[in-house]
């Protein structure tokens, strides 16, 4: 393979891409949306400054509550009469977590009261893998507030997801960035790349290219490299402009760019079969929507939740979310990474055989 030819395709695509409003829009849309949502969410958070983070079903005279109020958590606590109103508040995003205290619990509760169960209700946007981490973090928070340096706590914390299928409610802020990164990966892989190849075919520039000594492999590598770099740049801009870099960012890149490769292979398969840019648009948009929506809506209903494990973006989404919002030294992303690698490999093999068969056919 001649690197010079690959770089020539890459350079031409960069020059052409900056003047192609389709490509520019595909890159700019997730970036602008990230800035917009970031701004909106920040505004939301500032008004949330005095908003309670915990919804409690308990008597304010409960010693534990009194203690928390004394420790300066007054603004972090809101009381509810029953579970229904607490769940409604959770769904509306008025509180982040719900806590049900069944009976009197205090700092001096005897060990025999360990059996007392405190129920912590968390929003459906928090995936199962994160519930354990959340439990630990809430327990440490209680421990800190109650001055109990080592376990056990005077109660047992039971985690319960919010039993609702009416939407993900207050989880938007956690989902938005993974969703926008998926948008960049999907739009460029499923749409921009195959459209660019089919445009070359429709305009006949592909014929002109193949009258030069370039090989089909060099052409495909050059085209794919452009899309790969474009996705990389988009993700860097989303993270930079929204100040989202953290210690896990290299893992975020590993998951995202492997996912990018996967969509690029899918894009190459689409380009092979599509007769026109219109057909790329139809097929690519359907794939893009599935890719984009299934992971973000998987907590909204059983049917989508059942479908989600078969959609590769579920694992990309989960991996990105973990790297953005969790300490991955405590939550493993190995499963997500493995699944993304497997799906990428499968799509690579399909793309390889599709092009091999086409060459043989020619």
């Amino acid at each position: 393979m001649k690197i010079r030819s690959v770089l020539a395709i890459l350079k031409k695509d960069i020059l052409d891409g900056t003047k192609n409003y389709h490509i520019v829009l595909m890159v700019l849309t997730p970036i602008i949306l990230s800035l917009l949502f970031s701004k909106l969410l920040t505004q939301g958070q500032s008004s949330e400054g005095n908003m309670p983070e915990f919804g409690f079903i308990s008597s304010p005279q409960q010693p534990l509550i009194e203690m928390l109020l004394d420790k300066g958590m007054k603004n972090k606590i809101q009381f509810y009469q029953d579970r229904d109103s607490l769940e409604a508040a959770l769904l509306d995003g008025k509180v982040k977590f719900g806590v049900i205290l069944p009976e009197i619990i205090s700092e001096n509760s005897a060990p025999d009261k360990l059996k007392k169960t405190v129920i912590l209700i968390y929003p459906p946007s928090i995936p199962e893998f994160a519930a354990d981490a959340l439990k630990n973090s809430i327990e440490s928070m209680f421990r800190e507030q109650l001055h109990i340096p080592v376990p056990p706590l005077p109660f047992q914390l039971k985690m319960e997801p919010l039993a609702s299928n009416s939407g993900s409610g207050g989880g938007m802020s956690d989902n938005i960035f993974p969703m926008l990164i998926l948008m960049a990966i999907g739009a460029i892989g499923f749409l921009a790349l195959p459209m660019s190849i089919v445009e070359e075919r429709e305009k006949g520039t592909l014929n002109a290219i193949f009258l030069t000594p370039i090989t089909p492999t060099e052409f495909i590598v050059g085209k794919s490299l452009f899309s790969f770099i474009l996705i990389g740049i988009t993700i860097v801009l989303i993270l930079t402009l929204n100040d989202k870099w953290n210690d896990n960012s290299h893992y975020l890149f590993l998951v995202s760019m492997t996912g990018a490769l996967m969509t690029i292979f899918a894009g190459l398969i689409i380009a092979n079969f599509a007769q026109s840019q219109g057909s790329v648009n139809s097929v690519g948009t359907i794939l893009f929507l599935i890719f984009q929506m299934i992971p973000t809506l998987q907590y909204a209903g059983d049917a989508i939740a059942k479908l989600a494990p078969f959609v590769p973006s579920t694992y990309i989404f989960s991996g990105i979310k973990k790297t953005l919002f969790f300490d991955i030294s405590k939550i493993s992303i190995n499963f997500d990474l493995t699944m993304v690698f497997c799906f990428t490999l499968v799509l690579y093999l399909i793309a390889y055989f599709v092009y091999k068969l086409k060459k043989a056919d020619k």
Partner: protein
Amino acid sequence: MNNIISVDNLSKSYGDKQVVKGISFNVSECEIFGFLGPNGAGKTTTIRMMIGEIGADSGKIEIAGLKVPKDMAQLKTIVGVVPDFQNIYDRLSVRANLEFFASLNSISKTEVDRVLDEVFLTEHQQKACKNLSRGLRQRTLIARALLHKPKVFFLDEPTSALDPMSAKLIRELILKLKNNGTTVFLTTHYMEEADLLCDKIAIMNQGNIVASGSPQGLKDKIGRKAVIYEYNVDGEMQKVEFSLSTKEDREKLAALLREHEPIKIHTQEATLEEVFLSVTGDKWNNSKENNQ
């Protein structure tokens, strides 16, 4: 002169329709070979087979001793192609288009300056191709095909839909190429252009080559030669046309010469267009007659 292109018994079908029916022809080095025919005759399909874009069903093609499609890698270095549609990157400038193809051909960027100069595009080199006139875009295509100094140059309807000035410039370029030792394989619908430029012509119709030879040879052989005889009878001007190809007409002309003093005698030479219509069938007139 040696043959640089040799096509032998070439055939191609699309489904049940055979579009090229076992054609054979040779093109000599440094000549301009005109490949003519009505729309749908199979010209572009033949060219696409010759440049390796599509495979032939049967037959042999050799260009400069290289076999198509077996030696395509080497052939790409000696063949330049200007297709019948303007396949350039519209959003890129003329120069960016040429530099891209120079990179793919592993050619130095100084060659870009050379071809820009050759086709008189230097002053337009920074313009985006989408903003160029059809003639300038066509010159960009020619410049692109000339980057690697091809030995054989395929031009598919290069002056189609161009204004007379642009067309003249392109014809001059074609002649310049020939004089520099390039073999030109030209298809065109303009018979005057073919007559003016081509050393040899092949006319294709419905997948077959129906006539070939030099333009003059074809006109002499196939075209209608006539004499127009004008004379005076009782103060009234008479005009009679005689074909020189029939004995009867020649005898009538001789008799007229004896009886009436001529005022004017014109010879009328056949045109390439008449040759073309004669060998491809004048479909337009035929259909008009049928309708009547």
